């Protein structure tokens, strides 16, 4: 086990820079999720930690040693790939033992480690099977087993659950959490799925377009997003954004009519801002107290909740309502929110205004 540090890490392919300087510290034994939309550079960042991509500028340290120039095998890491990358012609046992054999470990020790990992992952009865005889979830477990037997300092997961169906994903998510509690190995986990990120992470790094927009615990990121991007990316359904302008103390005039009360600091009158309110914070209000009124366009019933899509000028907002309390489509809905749950972002830069 070890801490991992990224210091001003940049990556360029020729003249094209894809990672624009990422600084992050992963504490010993921490489970960090790197989350972002596809193409944001999160996998590239992970592959740089693994040593599969070179580091253009900056340093990556595992433990106390800078590993920029080290081969993957010398970094003491283990990686789980999205498509599992199991050796198709080797049995489950050999898949797990291969790396240890190359290291010249004794047969007895290999056997002990493989059996132990198989026990943790409940792979015991499958050890003699070939990967193609296994289901997706089992293959995923073998891939994790291959990482565990190495007893590395750091686990790297590259979207390990995205090839599984929804139910299995939830189960494997649970198993990964259990595994981390059991082994306590420092882990870096890449995903594009914000639910996975919220549930697995001790801390998360939200990436966008090659930058780490925010680093923090899931609840910090959810409750106190640093930018409009983070606010919109984390949370499902995503935050409602309504353009408006400063209109005196604690008030924003929305572009399509209505006044939003907020608890953020002073916003100059006339300054363009974006108001962000989460669907779960929007409430139905009396016309007198409402921020704005809109027409109910669409109702999505999810069982426990109902999502009400409200059209408001050219904007559309989602209001999350408890089951059974939905309005009629076409009716007018007056909504408001607690001023403390209203976020403001700069219209041009997307930076949070506090």
């Amino acid at each position, binding site marked *: 086990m070890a801490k991992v540090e990224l210091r001003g890490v940049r990556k360029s392919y020729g003249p094209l820079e894809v990672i624009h300087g990422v600084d992050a510290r992963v504490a010993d034994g921490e489970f960090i999720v790197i989350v972002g939309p596809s193409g944001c550079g999160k996998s590239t960042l992970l592959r740089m930690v*693994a*040593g*599969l991509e070179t580091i253009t500028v900056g340093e990556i340290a595992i433990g106390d040693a800078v590993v920029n120039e080290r*081969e*993957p*095998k010398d970094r003491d*890491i*283990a*990686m789980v*790939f*999205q*498509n599992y*990358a*199991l*050796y*198709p*012609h080797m049995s489950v046992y050999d898949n797990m033992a*291969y*790396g240890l054999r*190359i*290291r010249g470990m004794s047969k007895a020790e290999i056997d002990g480690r493989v059996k132990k990992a198989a026990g943790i992952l409940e792979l015991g009865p499958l050890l003699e099977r070939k990967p*193609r005889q296994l289901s997706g979830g089992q293959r995923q477990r073998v891939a994790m087993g*291959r990482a565990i037997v190495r007893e590395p300092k750091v686990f790297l997961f590259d979207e390990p659950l995205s090839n599984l169906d929804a139910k299995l994903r939830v189960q494997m998510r649970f198993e990964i959490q259990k595994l981390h509690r059991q082994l306590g190995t420092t882990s870096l986990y890449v995903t594009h799925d914000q639910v996975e990120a919220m549930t697995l992470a001790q801390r998360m790094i939200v990436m966008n377009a090659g930058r780490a927009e925010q680093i923090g615990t899931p609840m910090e990121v959810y409750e106190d997003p640093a930018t409009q991007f983070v606010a919109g990316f984390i949370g499902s359904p995503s935050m409602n954004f309504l353009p408006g302008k400063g209109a005196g103390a604690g008030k924003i005039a929305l572009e399509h009519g209505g006044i939003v009360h907020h608890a953020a600091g002073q916003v100059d009158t006339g300054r363009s801002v974006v108001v962000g309110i989460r669907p779960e914070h929007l409430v139905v209000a009396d016309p007198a107290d409402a921020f704005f009124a809109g027409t109910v366009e669409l109702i999505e019933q999810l069982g426990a909740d109902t999502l009400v899509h409200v059209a408001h000028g050219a904007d559309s907002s989602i209001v999350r309502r408890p089951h059974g309390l939905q309005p009629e489509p076409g009716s007018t809905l007056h909504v408001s929110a607690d001023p403390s749950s209203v976020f403001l972002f700069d219209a041009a830069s997307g930076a949070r205004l506090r």
Partner: protein
Amino acid sequence: MDVSTAPEPKARLPFLARMLRLPHARGAGRREGMVENRPFLTVLTHAVLLLGVAVIAFPVYVTFVASTITAEEVLAAPMPLVPGPHLIENYREALLHGAGNSAAPVWRMMANSMISALVIAIGKIVISLLSAFAIVYFRFPFRMFFFWMIFVTLMLPVEVRILPTYKVVSDLNMLDSYTGLTLPLIASATATFLFRQFFLTIPDELAEAARIDGAGPMRFFWDVVVPMSKTSMAALFVIQFIYGWNQYLWPLIVTTQEDYYTVVIGIKRMIAGGGEASVEWHLVMATAIMAMLPPALVVILMQRWFVKGLVDTEK
């Protein structure tokens, strides 16, 4: 290709049978209460099949018959169509003493053919595996240039480059040697290209997983790439063995000593020169039958692997 998605020959058969309206494929029709019986079509299709088999098998049968009778009987008109009693004696004569102008015994020529075919087939597989591995997994200057150079030679048959090749081989003093017989035929654009295409289907993550596991390039090659290519190698071996065995023009020009004749050349030498009557046809036919056996055996013994290599890549 996943095993489960590979088209199984068995699964295709009912469809084929239905197209040909064979009796056992009419289950569906019967369920609907339709009595469909077209014996004429059944007979016709079988007749066509039998005719096809006869056209191909009859010459082989005649060759076999001719190899079991005496030289006089072969030349008699009409030639008998039932095997005679001289089978063992003819084959022993051909094997140990040869026939006609070619004084080399057939066992010697068979051995030469076997050596060349094996060296060519195995050599081609080894060279192509390595060059395809280099082209797919390594980034070196002019990589694509070399690939295209190899690819372009696909378009040139042996016959086109035979003169320059002969010049090179003769300047290197490799005429009348096994090296001369086999080496120029080993370089194979086709096999390199096939292996390259196969390697490209191996996911990159596998190479990366091996790197993280600590396997160097050659270790990855031996432990992962070669075992995964087993079926393709088997398919190529069958094709290249037959290619090597059937070589005619190249062995003909690089060998002048009977010690290095392959059996295909030997047969030609046995019937070359001399009049029609002086050719010992019964021995020539025995040699021809023997020359047919090894390729046929290779196909039969490796059939399962061969088919697997063409339809299934074990991934």
